């Protein structure tokens, strides 16, 4: 496909004996908002670093048609990136950062940036070190949204921010930045906040992709049913992939089950990404816990 923004084949990365990325295949077209979700140490940051040309990898990887390990300088004209914690240089003043970005980035618009900053309490003469964490993220977002890039990568961008900032962050991103020409790749733990804006969902665990699909397909594939107490046995016979109890009601998640039959068993709705995550990753996570406990004892 010509319009692939990110294409990976057999993307792998090992750190000693740990496999951070295990032969990952990926194809992200333009105009998507992709959530890359996984537990800690699943390989999210490793994948992002490979895409950004910040670390080595094995296998094939093309970002905007370029090889990130060789052409990082060219790539960065079209890729923007906000990392998990505020990484703006602490010694710098706001106007200095704007000036540097303007002079070093050919696609930066100072006018746009000023417009975004005018809505915040950030002053031109403040040092980054004196800004609150939320303000640093606001500043970084203002910078990034003023760059006419094709791919924006967000690595836990709202970590440690209060809910007002987080809401505002995603609202600005969606309303003022995103369009069909751009692609956004987000990793986050706060899945509830991004699930409504995602077009695609990737679950990653132990370096492997567990789910890699569009949200539409996912909603088609997985169905959540609030099963009436009388139909419990019947529902269980349909092999739900996950079952939980909430206020005495059984909520079951089905993979590729007949919608009609499910409808007869109880109230049907779309599963939330968080519930999907627990259902698909939880089981393996418990295996993992046992294994790591055993390893812990051995050590």
């Amino acid at each position: 496909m010509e319009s692939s923004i990110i294409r990976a084949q057999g993307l792998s990365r090992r750190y000693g004996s740990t496999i951070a990325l295990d032969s990952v295949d990926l194809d992200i077209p333009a105009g998507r908002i992709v959530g890359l979700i996984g537990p800690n140490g699943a390989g999210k940051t490793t994948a992002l670093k490979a895409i950004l040309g910040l670390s080595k990898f094995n296998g094939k990887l093309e970002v905007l048609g370029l090889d990130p390990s060789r052409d990082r300088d060219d790539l960065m004209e079209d890729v923007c990136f906000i990392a998990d914690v505020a990484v703006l240089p602490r010694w710098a003043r706001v106007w200095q950062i704007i000036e540097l970005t303007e002079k070093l980035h050919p696609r930066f618009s100072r006018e746009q940036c000023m417009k975004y900053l005018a809505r915040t309490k950030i002053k031109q003469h403040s040092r980054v070190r004196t800004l609150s964490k939320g303000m640093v993220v606001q500043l970084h977002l203002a910078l990034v949204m003023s760059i006419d890039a094709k791919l924006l990568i967000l690595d836990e961008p709202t970590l440690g921010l209060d809910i007002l900032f987080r809401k505002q962050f995603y609202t600005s991103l969606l309303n003022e930045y995103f369009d069909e020409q751009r692609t956004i790749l987000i990793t986050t733990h706060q899945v509830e906040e991004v699930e409504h804006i995602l077009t695609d969902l990737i679950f990653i665990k132990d370096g492997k992709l567990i789910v890699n699909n569009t949200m539409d397909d996912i909603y088609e594939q997985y169905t959540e049913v609030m099963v009436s107490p009388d139909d419990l046995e019947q529902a269980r016979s349909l092999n739900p992939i996950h079952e939980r109890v909430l206020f005495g009601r059984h909520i079951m998640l089905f993979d590729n089950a007949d919608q009609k039959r499910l409808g007869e068993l109880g109230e049907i709705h779309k599963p939330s990404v968080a519930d999907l995550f627990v259902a698909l990753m939880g089981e393996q996570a418990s295996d993992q816990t046992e294994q790591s406990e055993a390893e812990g004892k051995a050590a």
Partner: protein
Amino acid sequence: MNQHMFSRLWVLIRREIWESPVAFKWTPLIIAGFILLVTVLLLIIGAKVDNEQVFTIDGIRMYAQMDDAQQRLMAAGVMFSAGSLFHQVMFLVVVFYLAGSLYDDRRDRSILFWKSLPVSDRMTVTSKILTAMVAAPIMYLGGIAFIQLSLVLIASGYGLMADINIFTEVWAPANLPKVWTVTLLGSLVQSLWLLPIYAWLMFCSSWAPRLPILIAVLVPVLIGMFQHFWSFFSNFRLPDFNLLWVILERIGRGVMPASIEWEQIVTESQTAPSFVPREEMLMSFKSIGNAFVSWEMWIGVAIGMLFLAGSIWFRRRATDS
């Protein structure tokens, strides 16, 4: 190198000066202020003790009666000494600057921001070494020029009181435009002379997991000591080549203004007991030229280039962790 690249380099060098204003802006100003303060204090105290103004006004009259060569020597001596302190302090400042140059942003993770800009690692390393080799000497020349101008102005004040022609007796022998040209050229040649040491510091800064300055100092010290003891206990000898001495000698010659004819002064003063230095020996274009074309200079530059290439290699692979 096109214009676009020059303007980007210029922006990156400005970034370095913004990041370290104390090193590049305040330190030369403070040294200049310190020298000026000491001079003025000495003159005030001197005026109290020396009621007759023997040392100042009479002194400058005596100076006015000297012949041209002597006047130029005295003026050059004052200008030269005023500048020396700047050179030595600048070397120390640059050492610490370079040791942190590729390390600090790895430690505070701002490397992730810098690497998100479309700037190549070669460009980053180049901008930092140019900050040390060109921007720093120019900033410190600002301080030197300020203090030299102040001293000439003070001398002119006394000259007016003493009723001498300050233009022929003070400004002409001091010859500030020549002094500044010599100082600037000399500093740039010294930067090139010190390049292997500068580049070594940067190289350590590019990969050290912590304390790059300590690593940069300890490695040559340990190698030098090892070599010393090895030749002590074994038959293997490189008599006149101990790494540590080579480095120390290079630093010693590197922090001196390049315009001094050091070797000539030493040899002449040993052979002729009545030796008197001349102005040309302190402010010599020839000495700068000789340093520039010496083979030691270019061996150093070649070693420096290797370390710089190594720095770029490590910078390419550096992230926040």
